[in-house]
């Protein structure tokens, strides 16, 4: 049996907030295989975003091990983490994080400035990716001239530009209407089918339709689907999510 692409053991992330310690993640163990579409579900404050940022090497854990492709992220320095992200990962954020002063094409090409890709190849690649996400006719529009769904599709194209094997998405449909949300989910599903590993953090249950693997988080712990459902159903009458 092959080892999982992502292997997490005893992962904790504690924050100091005022005088109190917030345990965002409290001893998380999980394995995610390559070429899977994993959805991490959890209500607000469950620690799912913290998990995503730790897996993406964008934050430091308090303790525990993170292995991706057999490399220990928790032991890498900032520089090594940056280079690892550059060649392995693509990120999609809830608020798109497009650069307002750049048009769609420039936004997609942005990560290639750090990889030394030849200039001609950059625009060629960016144009193809925009075509792939259905925005070929919007390549010279700035983010403010695009709808939320279109902006998120530009962000998906940008995540793919360095041809990463792992796509990490943080609430990619969180700011979108139903139709745009489904279009983005479809796009992520297509990426998975093309052989990439996709990990999406969401509290949108519709996402699970596309998932091959589901992880449920509650209060910083991984729980079973049954535990998660009963906990969220119990909480519902009390007025929370």
């Amino acid at each position: 049996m092959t080892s999982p692409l992502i292997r997490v053991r005893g992962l904790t992330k504690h924050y100091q907030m005022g005088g109190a310690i917030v345990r965002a993640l409290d001893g998380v163990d999980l394995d995610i295989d390559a070429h899977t579409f994993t959805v991490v579900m959890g209500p607000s404050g469950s620690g799912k975003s913290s998990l995503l940022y730790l897996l993406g090497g964008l934050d430091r854990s308090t303790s525990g091990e993170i292995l991706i492709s057999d490399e220990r992220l928790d032991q890498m320095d900032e520089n090594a983490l940056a280079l690892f992200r550059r060649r392995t990962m693509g990120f999609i954020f809830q608020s798109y994080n497009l650069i307002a002063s750049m048009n769609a094409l420039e936004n997609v090409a942005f990560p290639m400035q750090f990889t030394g890709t030849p200039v001609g190849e950059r625009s060629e690649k960016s144009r193809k990716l925009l075509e792939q996400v259905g925005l070929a006719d919007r390549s010279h529009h700035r983010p403010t001239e695009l709808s939320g769904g279109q902006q998120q599709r530009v962000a998906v194209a940008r995540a793919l530009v360095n041809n990463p094997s792992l796509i990490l998405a943080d609430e990619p449909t969180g700011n979108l209407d139903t139709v745009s949300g489904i279009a983005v989910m479809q796009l992520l599903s297509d990426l998975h089918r093309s052989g990439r590993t996709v990990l999406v953090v969401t509290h949108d249950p519709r996402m699970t339709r596309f998932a091959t693997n589901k992880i449920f988080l509650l209060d910083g712990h991984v729980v079973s689907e049954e535990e998660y459902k009963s906990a969220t159903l119990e909480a519902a009458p009390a007025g929370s999510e």
Partner: protein
Amino acid sequence: MKFIDLFRLIFGNLGRRKARVALTAIGVVIGTSAVVILVSLAIGLQKSATDSLYGIGDLTQIDVMPTYGGGFGGGGGPFMMGGVSVDSSQLDQPVLLTNSALEQLREIPGVKVVIPRDYLNAGVVIRYQRLEGGMNIIGIATDDLSNLGLEASQGVTALSRGTIVIGSMIPNNFYDPRQRPGQEPPPPPDLMDQQISMVVFKYDQNGNETKKTISLRVAGVLNETGGEPDYSVYLPLALTKSLNEWANGTRINYNKDGYSQVIVKVEDANQALDIADQITAMGFQAITPQSYLQGINSFFVVLQVIFGGVGAIALLVAAIGIANTMAMSILERTREIGLMKAVGATNRDVLSIFLGEAAGIGFIGGLGGIVIGWLAAQGMNVLAIVFLANQASQQGGPPPSVAVYTPIWLPIFALIFSTLIGMLSGLYPALRAATMIPVNALKYE
């Protein structure tokens, strides 16, 4: 990250914030142009001062005078003076320019000739036909003025009994004593080969005037030097000696009393200061045009530093503006920094981008500053030259050289300096950007 990508990104980013970059760069433009204008002005002043000094002074000449007590002015330890060993305990002894002292001067390596000279210390009027003039009469112990590096425009430079050699401006010093008010002054006479009379006066205790008239022929007119020789009449030292003896009623013994002044000519202008120092160490007073030059140069270096400092203060204010702009920019672009890191930018990449942007503002401002500074310097030059030429034509002075001079190194230095200032003021904001934790930057509201 490749340098070309970094360069493109930096100027792309600056181009996206044109108004802010322009406003920040204006501070640098003002500072840099102030540095360029003020330092150019100091250099221009130095240049015109030293240029005019080169006209006045012969750089291979040292004027040596005796010291009548009161110290040697430098140097210490025993040395030979007139065959007598003199040491520091005899500081109050006068050190005279006797013939044996002259021999010692001649022995200094690098000295070409040593020529004593003396002024005529009596009332004197030179007459030519109806014209009269008061002149600077110099007796000189050489048979040819070419030994002093002087050249004749007419006649000869050789001095002999009954002849004189005159400076180029001497004819202009003649006036008609009987000229009536409103009457045109006579044109300067052509004195070459003409007989002139030199009338020397002396007065006794009761104020009675005694005159002595000597007839002399003008054997040569010197080329214009821009200095003392232009306004001098040269005659043999023996003649001024006898006239001084007659006027003062005492005999002069150069072996005992020494000469009042000696001209030392050196072989190479570069040695003049060294030789002057050696002569000073012997107890005489030595003056070279180069010592003036040195003093003037060090004065102007101080002036350049002060002027440059005033400009640098303006640049410092601009630097604070750059730091502020960069700090604001980094706050506004925090999420962009987070994104850069998410897509694989290293801390060094982020640092280079923001340092580069700050340096870019400094560079753009510096470029504007040197263009404006240079144009302003040229404008000042035109105005100053027109004004000074007008003054010179009215007052008969020499035509002016440049008032403001910008050497090639100044704009290059100013550009590098303003770029460095920009980079330095962006250092703290850029470091803050580079060391941001990506997740915090991405979540920044």
